[in-house]
């Protein structure tokens, strides 16, 4: 059992799901698609969610202070500052 938090299209929602905390990323992403399609993630029900919606997402796994497991399926966050263009900053 783990708490799975999913952020999709700016909406963040989570559900307690019976999955192995060590489930591989690819399998976890497939499970997440099925959960969202079937409405098992409160606040995030998309029946027509495409199969490969989470291909470029990141999976974070943490132990909670209470001894539980928490998994985050989230978009990549490469940016801290916006310095675009050909002379884009290294900072």
């Amino acid at each position, binding site marked *: 059992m783990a708490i799975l*938090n999913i*952020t999709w*299209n*700016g*909406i*963040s*929602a989570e559900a307690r799901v019976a999955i192995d905390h060590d489930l591989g990323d690819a399998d976890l992403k497939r499970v997440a698609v099925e959960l969202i399609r079937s409405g098992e993630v409160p*606040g995030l029900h998309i029946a027509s969610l495409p199969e490969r919606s989470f291909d*470029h997402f*990141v999976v*974070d796994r*943490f132990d909670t202070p209470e001894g539980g497991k*928490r998994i*985050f399926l*989230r*978009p*990549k*966050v*490469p*940016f*801290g*500052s*916006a*310095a*675009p*263009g*050909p002379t*884009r*900053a*290294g*900072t």
Partner: protein
Amino acid sequence: MPRRVLFCGVGALGSTAALLCRNLPAEADAELAFVDFDRVEAKNLRAQGFTKPALGKNKAEALKLQLLNLYGVRSEAYPVRLEATNASALCAGAALLVDGFDNAASRTLLAEHAREANLPLVHAAMAADGSFGLVRWDERFRPDPEDSAGQATCETGEHLPFIGLLGAVLARAIQDFLRDDRRRDFLVSLSGVRET
């Protein structure tokens, strides 16, 4: 002696959070300091915490001037690129490092130095589409690579409201650490802010 908060990268998130920490020198005996080698361009006024007189100036220097001229707050500026050769000197004496960099290489360099020097480090990062962001302490953060090198975000300022929200959450995390030594992680999306 004031506790130094060193903002590494003062673009969108770094500059926004820094401005929202201007209360700290008076309230929490802190000193704000900034590292950034980049210069303020016109397009930066739409998504970063700079005003028109900053155009053309180094971002670290511009932020220092703004804090002094607009708020009477003194700070320090280092108009250089943080590199392996100067990280020790720049970070020396810092009570807290704040990662506002926009690329994995700089984030990694800063994190490696923080761990080596045993300095607290908080990261802030956002998705390219401006719909999601994280504030995480280094113990639970790993940098995400860009989808492509030099990938741009927010040239038009369209994500400014989200940058404001994420910058404010970062400022909250910084202030909680300085006041109570608390290390709070946050997940920020368009549906709200969730402490994680």
